[in-house]
């Protein structure tokens, strides 16, 4: 019960953030919070397979980028007035581009997962990385969509008359998607499916011993995870009004992993904390020195060394997140 009250308070504070930021004369905070919310969605979705399923995917930025490019490419064709591949007409309707991004993220994850999940351990890490790099270089070489330079999305998508160019509106939208995704994930990890995923992480042999062939479950989790990453990418394209291959660079996959590990692997809110910490630290430290990564590095090491559940350890019995 106390947890529910605390969560409600946390949520209320998050909702009120743009007003507080304005009142304190720091309106840029809303933008930072939007970035945190979007990365938190991507990190939480990585956590579904990394933290709960024990599958170390080192290529999750690919689905983030694909989600972003879905919005970008649909916008580009909308702008030019010529259909994508000659059949799919472009659009700037969020209610179409957002589900499309989820679909693209999911399809890509299903295809890549179907092949990658035939391996395990270090091989799995390397093969997911390799696939992500393939997607990265594909977009680098796609000159029609800006190649290396990326693609501008001049106007954010239209959504029920909301102005997504307004930072607060964009923030609330991102926060809403984050909360919805966390709630959904909370259901998933406690469900029968989630129990199987938990079992996969702990012992594949035990799962076989109770008659469960794990491949299909791992593939489903991988696909769900890719879908949520696609959603995060779509939000990013609307927030930054720009997509580029950087979104799917392997360092971005690394950042997502750091967020998960830093915040608390296998916990529901850990990735949110991790995203907040990483984006927040980057924002503050880069204001102090351009060599901010020199400061960030040791901080990460200390947290990883001394807190097994990352920042979530500070929340005591909340830590495991599955109580």
């Amino acid at each position, binding site marked *: 019960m106390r947890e529910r009250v605390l969560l409600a308070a946390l949520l209320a504070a998050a909702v009120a953030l743009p007003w507080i930021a304005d009142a304190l004369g720091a309106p840029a905070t809303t933008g930072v919070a939007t970035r945190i919310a979007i990365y938190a969605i991507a990190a939480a979705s990585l956590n579904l397979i990394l933290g709960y399923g024990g599958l170390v995917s080192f290529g999750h930025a690919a689905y983030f980028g694909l989600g972003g490019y879905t919005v970008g490419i649909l916008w580009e064709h909308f702008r030019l007035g010529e259909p994508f591949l000659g059949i799919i007409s472009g659009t700037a309707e969020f209610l179409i581009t957002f589900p499309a991004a989820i679909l693209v993220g999911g399809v890509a994850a299903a295809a890549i997962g179907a092949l990658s999940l035939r391996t395990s351990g270090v091989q799995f890490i390397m093969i997911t990385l390799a696939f992500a790099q393939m997607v990265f270089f594909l977009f680098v070489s796609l000159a029609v969509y800006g190649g290396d330079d990326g693609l501008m999305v001049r106007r954010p998508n239209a959504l029920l008359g909301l102005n997504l160019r307004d930072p607060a509106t964009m923030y609330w939208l991102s926060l809403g998607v984050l909360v919805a995704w966390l709630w959904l994930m909370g*259901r998933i990890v406690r*469900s*029968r499916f989630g*129990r*199987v995923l938990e*079992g996969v992480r702990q*012992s594949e042999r*035990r*799962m*076989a011993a109770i008659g469960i062939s794990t491949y299909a479950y791992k593939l489903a989790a991988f696909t769900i995870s890719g879908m949520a990453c696609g959603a995060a990418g779509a939000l990013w394209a609307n927030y930054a009004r720009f997509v580029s291959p950087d979104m799917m660079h392997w360092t971005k996959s690394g950042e997502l992993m750091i967020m998960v590990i830093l915040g608390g692997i296998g916990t529901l809110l850990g990735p949110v904390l991790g995203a907040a910490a990483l984006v927040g630290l980057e924002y503050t430290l880069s204001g102090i020195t351009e060599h901010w990564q020199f400061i960030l590095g040791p901080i990460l090491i200390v947290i990883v060394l001394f807190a097994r559940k990352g920042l979530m350890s500070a929340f005591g019995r909340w830590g495991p997140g599955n109580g």
Partner: protein
Amino acid sequence: MAEPVLAIRNLVKRFGGLVATDDLTLEVQPGELHALIGPNGAGKTTAIGQICGEITPDSGSIRFDGADITRLSFAARVKRGLSRTFQIVQLLDNDTALENVALAVQAAQGHSFRFWANARLDRSITDPARALLAQVGLPEERARVRVSDLSHGERKQLELAAALAPNPKLLLLDEPMAGLGAAESLRMTEVLRALKGRIPMLLVEHDMDAVFALADRVSVLVYGRCIASGRPDDIRADPAVREAYLTEEDGH
């Protein structure tokens, strides 16, 4: 005679130059508790590995419940009703005893592509799981203890409970008494005795007291070969068996 539950024919498994299973032929009849004994290195665990599907035999066939299962995966065999326990327990160490059995019950109920309802609150899973824990004699107050905090003996009991969850047509027990104290060993013997007759079992065991107390039939494996098979009293009297095995055991 009725068709055997398990029929192993001419099973061969080589690891390099070592013949771990050498033309092994073995049957488990309905209702029978069949013990497989043999000195260390006789290939008992390799045999169990092939029966459950973790090790692929080089040649030979395995029939279970009227069908050839030689090419099926471990998980597929479990689904058909061939359940096993491990010499070194394989459990979900971060989960509680109840959660471990509950997952086995869940798996027995069909696919787990259910994403919504909280599995821990699902009485259709937890009630049978509690019953199974009671059946193997694990006390109620230990159900909520994490596996990593359970004693070795309790883990052995727990693994048996999980193996019983799918209502198996055959139980493969790989040294259920290994590492147990005298009292625990006796308790495990009683649990198995209670199951005897209802579920056919293939028992690999070093504890001769347990074997001769429980078994309807004993087969003796030496260097991957079955050198004798028969009623416990006949096996005890068999000179070849005494030569190969029992004298050595009596020695300590």
